[in-house]
């Protein structure tokens, strides 16, 4: 004679699981830990006196309080060509007298106004960084996306090698100037 098998009632299992699921849906968030990485300059008082930088080594991007763009003194409405302009400027190596002497000396200067929106700022900074990452990726022989992935994990010696190869001789000189005050607050 067979004993009745002891069984856990599983009709309510789905309900319990749904409850747990709802609990996790409500109390958790999707982590978003991605963004544009930047290194700020040293504190203002620790800086040495102003060093004169020749005009040709500066790529000036200015954004005013109504988010309009001035690139090297010229108004620019469409930003699609900006990345190539920056790349040409950095990799000039003294060929064109208007562009930089060498990638090491080239500085991309981004000056905003206190009234510029963060959205516009991120858009321009993104383009400037894209130009640099494109150059690094080219030099290291990987794609832009791969290079950024490699740069995120430098503990791996292979990644470090690719990263160093890409960055060799080309520091990322993106300077963010103190904003002007025309737009108020």
């Amino acid at each position, binding site marked *: 004679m067979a004993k009745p098998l002891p069984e856990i009632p599983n009709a309510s299992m789905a309900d319990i699981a749904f409850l747990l699921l709802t609990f*996790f849906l409500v109390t*958790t*968030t999707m982590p978003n830990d*991605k963004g*544009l990485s930047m290194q700020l300059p040293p504190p*203002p008082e620790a800086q040495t006196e102003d060093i004169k930088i020749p005009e040709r080594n500066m790529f000036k991007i200015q954004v005013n309080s109504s988010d309009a763009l001035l690139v090297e003194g010229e108004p620019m409405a469409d930003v699609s060509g900006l990345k190539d302009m920056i790349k040409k400027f950095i990799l000039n190596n003294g060929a064109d007298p208007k562009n930089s002497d060498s990638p090491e000396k080239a500085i991309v200067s981004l000056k905003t106004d206190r009234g510029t*929106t963060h959205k516009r700022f*991120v858009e321009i900074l993104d383009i400037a960084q*894209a130009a640099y990452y494109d150059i690094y990726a080219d030099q290291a022989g990987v794609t832009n996306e791969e290079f950024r992935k490699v740069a995120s994990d430098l503990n791996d010696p292979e990644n470090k090698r690719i990263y160093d190869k890409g960055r060799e001789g080309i520091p990322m000189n993106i300077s963010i100037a103190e904003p002007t005050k025309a737009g108020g607050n």
Partner: protein
Amino acid sequence: MSKFRKKTKVKQDIPTSSMPDVVFMLLFFFMVTTELRKTAVDVQQRIPQATQLRKLQRKTLVTNLYIGEPKKSEQYGTEPKIQVDDTFIETGDIILWVNRKKDELPENEREQLTIAMKVDSEAKRGIIADVETELRKANARKILYAALQKTEKR
């Protein structure tokens, strides 16, 4: 009534025996991909989009700083505010806050503290630049502007 009754009875039930398994799978998916809310963000967060995103290496070294218009605008006004750890702070308090955050880290990792700036798209550069100046003074110079992946047009 019996006129309308169908002759052949087709079984119409959705099989529910596998329902718990399906739901458990969903549950595990959410448990693995999400993380618990640590702070309730009281400022608007319309994170801007960008293409050149970098991922943060180590979560323990990252501290969030939120800037945006307060959600309770009738109480706090519409000017963008700075929020850290559930409270609004003024620009002058940032150095103190950074130092407190650095104290929480082991000594050899203090210099690697990264500030993740989660800034609303419509916030102005003025307030952000003020925050940056304070961060420079506090010697927390690694920052990250939070951004979402922009889908590139082809």
